[in-house]
């Protein structure tokens, strides 16, 4: 159904309508197509006039569709008219219409009107984040930063998560403006990124950099850099925060892992109380370990090799400088089979401690327990991302702690062409936005969208103040 190019009169519309398969929804379909083809607004008007004359009324959904077209084309006076009509006609509007009105008006010079509509929308529901986004952007575009931050804080208070776009717009519109209050708010946003472990993307990072450099009289300078494995910034030689958790955080995390991940709703789901107790005594008697290895996971690294050989290679590779190793496995490994040779297993057991769990037990939970119990220096080896265990933790704060701990303690083995493995060591520094007052270090992503939550950026923005 192609929308006409010119406004039609009643007769012409009637003819089109009668030729349409479902005359009842003709107007809706027609308007949808107009929105898609971005037809001239007069064409839509003529359709509405035709409807109004025939029925003496225009239905709400048709009005909303027309409004969509107006918003799409930025016809501010029309948006006004439609709003007047809707308001007079209906006691309240639904959230879709409010969203459209806010979006349409916030881009015009009547953006304050959008704010009143936002207030109205709040009465019936929590407005969407795009509505807040439009209003905040409009306010900051007109240099009313106070209002913008007020809306932003309100949004956070209602648990509406702001888009990175909004956060970026704060930095964009504050460029070159001086003000202690403003600076505090923007630092607040950077700390929000830190607390929620959000990494800005490249363009956002540029906005942050430009804002810092534009603050009059403060002499900030930003550089893009890669942080060394030692955790030192090559630009300012500053040592980044290390990835260790504080005593309290550490205890909290261990407790929660035992409670939520191992026991959960029913200890029998992942293990059994007897087995867990046996494991606990086993670990307590041999503490502390330096590296805990997920035996089954490691044994699958090279699919063309015998599984016990893979494990043996990994143990040989990790057993340096008298490191105490713990290998977690399942009972089926002890049964002599084509993949698990008894002699090799015997030899391995001389080099490391082994714990064999039942075949239906989830050994990952044991891996976490043993590592946490051994202390902060202990690392663990698996290629698993442990996402399902992270998901068992019930609040986001503990999940963030878990991620941080995981980054600092997980060693990943990668198969190499030669017989041994390459180790991707645990990070010594913590990959979050961080500051010391006169320096800021901000990790950023090269690409816009976040593809893998476990992947952390290697590129950093280093900002320092030159006195």
């Amino acid at each position, binding site marked *: 159904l192609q929308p006409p*190019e*010119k*406004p039609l*009169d009643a007769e012409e519309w009637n003819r089109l309508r009668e030729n349409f398969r479902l005359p009842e929804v003709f107007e*809706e379909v027609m308007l949808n197509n107009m929105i898609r083809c971005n037809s*001239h607004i*007069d*064409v839509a*008007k*003529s359709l*509405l*006039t035709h*409807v*109004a*004359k025939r029925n*003496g*009324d*225009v*239905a*709400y*959904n048709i009005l*909303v569709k027309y409004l969509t077209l107006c918003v799409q084309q930025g*016809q501010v*006076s*029309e948006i006004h*008219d439609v709003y*007047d*009509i809707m308001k*007079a*006609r*209906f*006691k*309240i*509007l*639904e959230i*879709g*219409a409010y969203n459209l009105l806010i979006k349409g008006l916030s881009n015009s010079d009547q953006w304050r009107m959008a704010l009143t509509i936002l207030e109205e929308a709040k009465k*019936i*529901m*929590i407005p969407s984040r795009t509505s807040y986004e439009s209003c905040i952007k409009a306010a900051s575009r007109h240099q009313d930063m106070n209002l913008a931050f007020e809306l932003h804080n309100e949004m956070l208070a209602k648990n509406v998560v702001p888009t990175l776009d909004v956060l970026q717009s704060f930095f964009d519109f504050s460029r070159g403006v001086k003000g202690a209050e403003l600076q505090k708010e923007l630092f607040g946003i950077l700390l929000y990124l830190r607390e929620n472990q959000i990494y800005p993307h490249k363009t956002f990072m540029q906005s942050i950099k430009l804002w810092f450099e534009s603050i009059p009289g403060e002499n900030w300078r930003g550089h893009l850099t890669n942080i060394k494995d030692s955790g030192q910034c090559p630009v300012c030689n500053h040592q980044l925060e290390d990835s260790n958790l504080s005593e309290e955080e550490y205890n909290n995390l261990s407790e929660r892992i035992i409670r939520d991940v191992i026991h959960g*709703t*029913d200890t*029998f*789901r*992942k293990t*059994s109380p007897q087995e867990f107790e046996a494991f606990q005594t086993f670990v307590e008697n041999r503490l502390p370990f330096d590296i805990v290895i997920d035996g089954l996971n490691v044994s699958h690294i090279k699919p063309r090799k015998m599984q016990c050989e893979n494990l043996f290679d990994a143990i040989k590779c990790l057993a340096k400088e008298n490191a105490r190793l713990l290998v977690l496995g399942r009972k089926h490994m002890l049964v002599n089979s084509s993949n698990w040779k008894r002699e090799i297993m015997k030899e391995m057991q001389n080099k490391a401690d082994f714990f064999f769990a039942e*075949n*239906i037990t989830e050994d990952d939970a044991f891996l976490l327990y043993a590592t946490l119990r051994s202390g902060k220096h202990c690392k663990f080896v698996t290629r698993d991302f442990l996402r399902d265990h992270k998901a068992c933790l019930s609040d986001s704060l503990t999940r963030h702690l878990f991620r941080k701990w995981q980054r600092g303690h997980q060693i990943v083995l990668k198969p190499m062409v030669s017989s041994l493995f390459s180790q991707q060591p645990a990070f010594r520094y913590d990959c979050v936005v961080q500051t010391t007052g006169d320096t800021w270090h901000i990790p950023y992503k090269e690409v816009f969208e976040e593809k893998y939550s476990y992947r952390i950026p290697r590129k950093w923005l280093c900002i320092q103040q030159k006195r």
Partner: protein
Amino acid sequence: MQSANMLLKKILRSSVLPFAAQHGMKKDLFPLCRTLSVSLCLKQDNSCQPSEKLDLDAWKKVMKSGLQEEVTETVSEPQELSSLAAARETLEMWRLAGRSVPENMSEEQLKTFMECPSKSAKKKYLRFLYLKELCKRNDKRKMEEKRERKLEAQEQTSKTEETQRSPFMSLWDSTMDKAYNWRAAQSMIFGQPLVFDMSFEKEMSVREVTNTVKQLVLSESCNRRSVDPFHIHFCNFKDDSLYHKEFLKYYREAWDKLLITMTDQCYTEVFPKEKLIYLTADSPKVMKTFDHDKIYIVGSMVDKSIKKGVSLARAKRLGLETAALPLEKYLLWNTGAKNLTLDQMMRILLTLKDTADWKKALEFVPKRKYCGFLNKPVSELKKTLDLMNTLKFGKRQQEVQKEFAKIYSKKYKLK
């Protein structure tokens, strides 16, 4: 209304703005003026010039003219709406906007709606109610059509006056029921027990419990109708539980006459432990044959969020043997979880009991979940499948060729 339009048209034809201002209709014409000035600007691009007699903003007039009476009405109404009424109002607007919202909602439903914790939960609940309403309406329509057809048919037969005599006595439903009940009663004395574990209420949402009960009702009915029914036990069944409440909705007075053993005891207290086998999809053991001396336990749980290992945990705790259906062995699995509905389980078990034919029994697995029956073991098929995939993606060409040659050495020679 009509006259107003005519007037407007006239004004437009003369198409002079000051004239409109002179006229005594300032208030009404205000929006018109604004848009007229807009369309004046638009006149520059000729492609979209409205034909002269067309009044593009007439609809606004119509909308506003219809208002005068209504506005006074709304003003007189009390401004403060109760939260329920406000919710009803919002829903009405959503319906007008063309969303999936039911037309009629009871007070109770409205309350449940308002208690939904999030926007998406609200949307889902509304959609559920909307679809339910739609189904109900369609059923009603179909019933009416059926009734009409029946009436018509009756009229025709009465016209022809030809009553055919059948040599057989017609068996009515009640007679059938009696026969079924006789069988079920026999099974309660001599039949093989089948246990439904009713201890999962805490792991389920209200919706899941209602679905569970629905499936149990279906299983009970197909058990009753089978040639050799099981003796059904509901174990761990508490009298004032949500299960019980839902059952009463389905069975009403028939609940007390059901030929089922209900007990709040655990199955381990009722039966000897070594005879029990807990059926769960998470079990590492695969069922090979149906054993007529064992007592199978099925967990009465609908698990929409795939809580892995819940029923396996029950069996582990009590130290029972477990088993899973050999789905992988007989079916080339396509999509979906391996946990089946309770009535499907019941049909499969009944068929196994009668025929011991896995192929026949697994017919009751939904067709969408598997591609077909296997006549070769899966491991062998997997090998060929892997080979096909590697060939398709062209990886490791040489290795694949070697492997191919190894398997099909007679037909294919490597040069």
